[in-house]
């Protein structure tokens, strides 16, 4: 698709009703990126994509073996 007009929101970006059995990825919007040295250590320029792996802290104590 080579639409050259302004940033057109794809219709599927924000479906009002999500349907069963179909995966859905929200459309990403621009945000002010991290400074490049921060981005380099965080592994992304976008804060909203900054998902550090937190490993076992994510598991409540009682469930831990």
């Amino acid at each position, binding site marked *: 698709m080579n*639409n*050259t007009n302004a*940033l057109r929101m794809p219709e599927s970006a924000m479906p009002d009703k999500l349907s069963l059995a179909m995966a859905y990825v929200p459309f990403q919007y*621009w945000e002010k*990126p991290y400074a490049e040295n921060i*981005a380099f250590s965080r592994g992304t320029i976008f804060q909203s994509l900054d998902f550090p792996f937190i490993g076992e802290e994510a598991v409540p104590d009682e469930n831990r073996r």
Partner: protein
Amino acid sequence: MKTDAKQECLLKTIMMYSFVIDEIALYLDTHKTCAEGLAYFRKYRDLYNEAVKKYVEEYGPLNYRQSKAEKSWDWTDGKWPWEKED
């Protein structure tokens, strides 16, 4: 050729610019006409090219395509990446 702190620092800067360019390229793949994204790419593309130009002039080629190759094959003159001062 001893790798001095200035060289290390410039190399790290090149790596940082290279990383953010890869990141914004991924974003622009799905946001072709995003003005802020395009401006961000242009900014770091220019910074990256400048830093590489400076590095190559001062410390030699980063890849063999940048070799001067006038009197000798200068690509293999510098230290190998694994040759670190202990």
